[in-house]
């Protein structure tokens, strides 16, 4: 981890924002009222060093998936910049964009819907190589076989169709497809959350082996805090479109600073019978991103003993509370109960 941090940043995301317009009634459009917008991703900045894994955690609707898609330009960011390997991704078009996409691949959550059911899995893995002119004909066949072996699949399975595989095998195929174009970074969006525990461990180990062997960089988006602790070097916690805390995995899990992170960690059921430490049960649910509250977005559910009106006045900036540990809270860190 420490060695990866000294590498230069491969990906730099600065003040990234993505708004989704909310469709409104006729009278609003006729009378020129400003269209409302959902701020799915709001002023997000971070960087990832080459060879590093940044884990992004948060609950449904926090914007983590939208952020991943905006970085890949699968959707257009509203503002902000995404610089990959020194190139601003937002300015790219046509061939340049395609060539950037080769370097930045993605593995999705649902291995059932991310593979074309009418294409053999071998053809699915081969397709990227053809598009990017990396290999053709026999050379491509050979590379498909090598990739299958690398992800732990029998190379003879290349002629089969997706429905013939289990969830874990399909996720291996998804990884093989991402690797087929020799990317430098992979955005992994909940890659193991549809898998059973025993299979999940197999896929996580595979991803770690591939990272070590190929020097890959991962942006690993997941809601499962235990999985992220295991795989990530650094972790960013998102809430209502913003990063509210970021630190090395060890530091974040042992010294969570932002009240939301504290609550999130304490809510995870742990396989330790009799562990009867007080749990912070958050009341209510996150506010709507269409109408975020002023000031701190977590204010309405915050359990911090010092919370007061100051919290509703300004959006707390991500401040370095201890070395390399940033949190968006204007109060002194409170202890976990």
């Amino acid at each position: 981890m420490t060695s990866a941090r000294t590498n230069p940043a491969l990906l730099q995301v600065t003040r990234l924002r993505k708004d989704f317009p909310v469709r409104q009634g006729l009278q609003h459009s006729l009378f020129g009222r400003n269209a409302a917008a959902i701020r799915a991703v709001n002023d997000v900045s971070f960087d990832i060093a080459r060879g590093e894994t940044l884990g992004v955690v948060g609950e449904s609707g926090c914007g983590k998936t939208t952020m991943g898609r905006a970085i890949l330009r699968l959707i257009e960011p509203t503002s902000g910049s995404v610089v990959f390997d020194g190139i601003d991704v937002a300015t790219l078009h046509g061939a340049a964009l395609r060539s950037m996409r080769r370097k930045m691949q993605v593995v999705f959550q649902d291995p059932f819907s991310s593979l074309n059911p009418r294409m053999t899995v071998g053809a699915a893995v081969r397709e990227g190589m053809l598009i990017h002119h990396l290999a053709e004909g026999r050379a491509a066949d050979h590379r498909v076989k090598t990739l299958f072996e690398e992800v732990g699949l029998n190379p003879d399975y290349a002629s089969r169709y997706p429905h013939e595989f289990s969830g874990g095998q399909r996720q291996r195929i998804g990884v093989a497809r991402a690797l087929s174009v020799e990317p430098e970074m992979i955005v992994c969006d909940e890659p193991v959350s549809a898998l059973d525990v025993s299979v999940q461990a197999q896929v996580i180990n595979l991803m770690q082996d591939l990272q070590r062997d190929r020097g890959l960089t991962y942006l690993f988006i997941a809601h499962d805090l235990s999985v992220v602790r295991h795989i990530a070097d650094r972790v960013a916690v998102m809430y209502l479109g913003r990063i509210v805390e970021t630190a090395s995995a060890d530091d974040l899990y042992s010294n969570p600073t932002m009240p939301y992170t504290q609550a999130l960690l304490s809510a995870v059921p742990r396989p330790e019978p009799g562990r009867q430490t007080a749990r912070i049960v958050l009341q209510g649910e996150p506010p709507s991103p269409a109408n975020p509250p002023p000031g701190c977005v977590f204010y309405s559910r915050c359990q911090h003993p010092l919370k007061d009106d100051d919290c509703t006045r300004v959006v707390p900036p991500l401040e370095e509370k201890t070395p390399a540990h940033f949190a968006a809270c204007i109060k002194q860190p409170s202890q976990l109960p």
Partner: protein
Amino acid sequence: MTDPLLSVSDLRTYFHDGEVVARAVDGVSFDVAEGETVAVVGESGSGKSVTALSILRLIRPPGRIETASSIRFQGRELLQLSDGEMRTIRGNRIAMIFQEPMSALNPVLTVGEQIAEVVRVHTDASRHDAWERAVEMLALTGISAPRERASEYPHQLSGGMRQRVMIAMALVLKPALLIADEPTTALDVTIQAQILELLQRLQEQLGMAVLLITHDLGVVAEVADRVVVMYGGEVVERATMTELFEAPQHPYTEGLMSAMPRLDRDAERLVTIPGVVPPSTAWPSGCRFRDRCSYAWDRCATEHPPLYPVGDEHESRCHLAVEPLRRSESHTPLTVRVGADS
């Protein structure tokens, strides 16, 4: 000893497709006592959900509960009841909640109407009284402004709120047994904590038993009194919750516990269980877990292991119980002992 509330014995639920038979549940036995929480743990394809549906007799053809299976509830054999008699038990004495509340709720009725309907079907309460009980129940599940919420439709509610509505509907008649099939799996972790807390509070208030179907060992450790681990359509281990976590005996249970990434520490590498669950149309001979087991020896291929007693209220379907030396001889133990580092 008094009879347990629910006693499942040698339950076999098979799905027939011509010559092919999928033995989804294949000889499952366990008891649930009044007021206690029993967790059935297993991964996809273990047969845990089919077991739950079988108890309520919700198996449709080509599925069939085979003869010689027995499900006794409050002293009555459920498998011999008429459909009408079964309907009076379902939703009234035994209720069920599912993983995905959206698909279990009727989108064109308000949630209040749906809860009131349960009351009106099973009791002779008036329309007004049924509605009042629905509102009361919503309040009990911690929904704020229950009277207003009762008039809303499922799509107007969040996932956590819908699960509260499901719970209100399931518990409005104060059943003796609640079957909860992955009740928090679709929910975010902070909402999951709220729902688990709610279920435990209501269980105490109403004095009901809970049969919790789950894949999440963390949830099990939070709420269960006893645990049944399923694999390959069978019970492979049965123990009190504490005993299961402190001294898991079956290699599958051991494997599950060590394959889980942990929140409180980081291992260099996760222990995996190689391979996948075999299909229920072709369970391996002998022990069904042997292809994936690092202890397996020749006996495992030829002799189907029974549930051996391995301690007080603790049983394991593994020949290691009678050949314990093989555990240390053949193998470095898989399990990182739970809680040993804290």
